[in-house]
């Protein structure tokens, strides 16, 4: 057989010198496409098998080789070996071209995510299986048929192969396939192995076709072919059964996770299990040092979708669960994960007051276990609207349960909308902190309020709500401990963009909030300063200093911020700007600014009147009027 192999390879080398050009062409094509199109090149490559047979037939080698001292098995094997070589050469060329093109695409687009080793492994196995199956059908036809009949008949499987290859590689991006291979990692290898078994069966069949005489010889190969068929069938049936079961199980799990948004649970164990369904899936799957691609493979396998513009963001089919990955800029490896679940709408409470919310808050305290926390939710029949969880670079877990309540007649005032928020932080086992926030509706009048509330919330309500959110989220002791880079990553997650003139200054998406960072010589955050401009300067036709002073007479130093906010509500006052800062020595300061444009101030013409109220550590410390 060595001589036959030598002949095949010598002819192959002399007729396939264009392969280098082919490899180059495939790479260039892959750089400008998804890479799948270059798989068509594989079809072209193996289509050369027919031309090889044609060449042999035309020159008379096919007949002559039968006169040589070689068995049919040797003649057939030589053809199969060289065809396998072509097959692997084509697949290697495809992988190389994909790698080069993916690296190129990654370099020109930071959002592009090249395939990881597992993806390459599964794709290669599928390629091998497809191509082996194609050759398994193709070669016996080549041995059986001659001349134009061979060319015509073998054209059909060639076209089917090219079509199936492209479709098959597209299916690899399908979520259900990812479910399968993430749960049955050996599945692609089994598929490739079945392809090889079919290849072997095909070889037996070709030998039988090639054998003109010697019944015992034929019978021997017939038996071998039947055994291999049986083996391939058994492996295929077993693998298919496991695959179907895996997909079915995952669908059930996914349905359950989607239903978490509707908290109709009565039992704390159910709640706990459902939380664990969300978090166990993630927290146990992810660890520091994983790449985005590895995380993506897992998440997509669980049925989550990857954001096409930002590959570090994922979302569930229901949209209720969002996952953000944070990676190191230099290594691209995972440093933390952030999971956010929006579960239920805020609970509406009629005629609520501060005491209502304060009493509610009294049910939760630092140090209580998470089990107790869940039990309390159940007892009070209040459930978190949002749950977020962050897994930090040092594997520290932080979980936040956010309870939201709204009321239309806050403190008995009609059309006085308020939103009360309790944020409970845990480390996965016990409650570590509890914060609350109240956001009032500073409505300017019944008519205006009616108009805005009937359709959309007022700009001020939205602004106040966002301010409160950002204040809670940005200017706090947790964030001051971050490095500037970590903090800016967080800002970017909230759609803040960096100023082009000042790298330590960031703007919100609507441009109304600016955040600036102050760092020391060791690049450590010393202060976070945020300014939110939501209100508009109010116009007054005519007023005196006494008039203006009277507006703010009930705002006095020493009053708590809560009382101050309540007073603003009573007086129907609205700040134009809120500034907030948090320093590394734990000093928290907030300044409310009120601006007025008076056409006739004290009879002296136009003036701008500004009142600033400083609040430090929750108390009004200074009131200035300019």
């Amino acid at each position, binding site marked *: 057989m060595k001589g036959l192999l030598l002949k095949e390879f*010598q002819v192959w080398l002399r007729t396939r010198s264009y392969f280098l050009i082919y490899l180059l062409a495939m790479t260039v094509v892959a750089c400008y496409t998804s890479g799948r199109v270059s798989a068509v090149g594989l079809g072209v490559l193996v289509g050369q098998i027919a031309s090889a047979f044609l060449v042999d037939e035309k*020159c008379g080698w096919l007949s002559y080789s039968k006169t040589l*001292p070689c068995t049919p098995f040797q003649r057939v094997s030589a053809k199969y070996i060289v065809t396998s070589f072509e097959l692997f050469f084509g697949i290697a060329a495809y992988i190389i071209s994909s790698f080069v093109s993916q690296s190129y695409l990654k370099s020109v687009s930071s959002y592009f995510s090249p395939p990881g080793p597992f993806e390459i492994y599964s794709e290669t196995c599928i390629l091998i299986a497809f191509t082996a199956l194609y050759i398994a059908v193709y070669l016996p036809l080549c041995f059986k048929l001659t001349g134009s009949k061979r060319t015509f008949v073998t054209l059909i499987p060639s076209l089917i192969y090219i079509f199936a290859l492209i479709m098959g590689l597209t299916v690899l991006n399908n979520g259900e396939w990812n479910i399968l291979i993430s749960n049955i990692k050996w599945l692609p290898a089994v598929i490739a192995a079945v392809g090889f078994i079919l290849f072997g069966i095909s070889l037996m069949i070709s030998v039988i076709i090639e*054998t*003109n005489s010697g019944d015992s010889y034929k019978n021997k190969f017939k038996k071998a072919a039947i055994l291999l068929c049986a083996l391939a069938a058994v492996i295929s049936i077993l693998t298919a059964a496991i695959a179907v079961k895996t997909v079915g199980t995952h669908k059930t799990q996914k349905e359950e996770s989607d239903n978490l948004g509707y908290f109709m649970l009565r039992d704390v164990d159910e709640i706990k299990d459902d939380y664990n369904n969300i978090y166990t899936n993630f927290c146990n799957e992810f660890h520091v040092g994983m790449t985005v691609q590895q995380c993506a493979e897992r998440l997509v396998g669980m049925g989550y979708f990857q954001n096409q513009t930002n590959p570090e963001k994922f979302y569930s089919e229901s949209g209720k669960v969002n996952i953000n990955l944070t990676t190191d800029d230099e290594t691209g490896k995972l440093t933390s994960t952030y999971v956010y679940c929006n579960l239920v709408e805020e609970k509406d409470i009629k005629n609520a007051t501060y005491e209502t919310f304060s009493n509610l808050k009294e049910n939760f305290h630092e140090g209580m276990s998470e089990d107790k926390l869940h039990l309390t939710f159940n007892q009070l029949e209040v459930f978190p609207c949002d749950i977020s969880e962050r897994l930090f670079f040092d594997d520290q877990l932080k979980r936040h349960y956010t309870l939201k309540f709204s009321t239309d007649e806050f403190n008995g005032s009609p059309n006085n909308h308020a939103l009360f928020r309790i944020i409970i932080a845990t480390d996965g086992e016990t409650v570590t902190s509890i914060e609350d926030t109240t956001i009032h509706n500073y409505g300017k009048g019944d008519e205006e309020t009616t108009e805005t509330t009937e359709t959309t919330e007022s700009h001020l309500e939205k602004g106040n709500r966002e301010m409160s959110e950002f204040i809670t989220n940005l200017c706090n002791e947790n964030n001051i401990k971050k490095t500037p880079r970590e903090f800016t990553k967080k800002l970017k997650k909230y759609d803040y963009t960096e100023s082009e003139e000042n790298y330590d200054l960031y703007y919100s998406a609507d441009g109304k909030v600016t955040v600036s960072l102050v760092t020391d010589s060791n690049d450590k955050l010393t202060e976070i300063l945020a300014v939110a401009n939501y209100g508009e300067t109010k116009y007054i036709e005519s007023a005196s200093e006494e008039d203006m002073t009277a507006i703010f007479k009930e705002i006095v130093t020493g009053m708590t911020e809560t009382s101050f906010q309540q007073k603003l509500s009573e007086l129907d006052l609205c700040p134009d700007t809120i500034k907030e800062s948090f320093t590394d020595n734990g000093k928290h300061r907030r300044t409310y600014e009120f601006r007025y444009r008076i056409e006739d101030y004290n009879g002296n013409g136009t003036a701008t009147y500004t009142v600033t109220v400083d609040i430090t550590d929750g108390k009004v410390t200074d009131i200035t009027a300019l």
Partner: protein
Amino acid sequence: MNAIEIKGLCKNYGRFRLDNIDLTLPCGCIMGLIGENGAGKSTTIKLLLDIIKKDAGKIHIFGKEMTSDATDIKNDIGVVLDEPCFPELLKASDINSIMEKIYTKWNGETFFSLLKRFDIDEKKRFKSLSKGMKMKMSIAVALSHNAKLLILDEPTSGLDPVIRDEIVEIFYEFTRNPMNSILISSHIVSDLEKLCDYIAFIHKGRLLLCDEKDRLLEKYCVIHCTADELAEIPEDNVIHKKESSYGVEAIVKRYAADGFETSPVGIEELFVAVIKEAK
């Protein structure tokens, strides 16, 4: 021991049928298989070499049955088919490398010396050679592995007389070894007449005659006579007759030609006569 024994060989192609061919070639002899185009010569050779599958019959070469995996038999057979049969991009050195690994008794020196004798450029690719040179290359391959049996299917077809003569001379040299045998098919009878010990006539898939050449030549003769004189000879003994205004020329069995002036018959004449009568 016979080099080739064929018994009851049959192959059906629908419109053409090779029907019960019985043929024996003793060792050390040369047999010529003569037939017109489409007679079944190539089919017989292909069946003999297991290139195509037989429908019935037995084939023994060197006393062993010829099967698909009879590699030991094929090692001792040199084959030249009617068309040159090497991939066109190969050179002589490539062919040498390939055959070296196929035949256990391949002799590269013999191969290259034959190429030199045939004046074939070793560096030229097969496709660059003329038809005659391609055939000579094939013959060189057949002669370079110490074969005991040469099976040649129209090796001189399409070649000019000089080359044909050269090739026939080479075959003579081959048969100087008393154990070497040749089965050669051709429709150029003159080549075979010079070379062969045995002659077999095939016509439309049937073997009409198979006998030693000398015996055939002795068995038949040509007579010139009148029609009346010819009528005296039993029809069974008259192989063929050709009437003209000068009389009748007939090929008859020699023992039936007593009293007539005879002249020797050539194989070609005999062949044509037999074929015409068969038609």
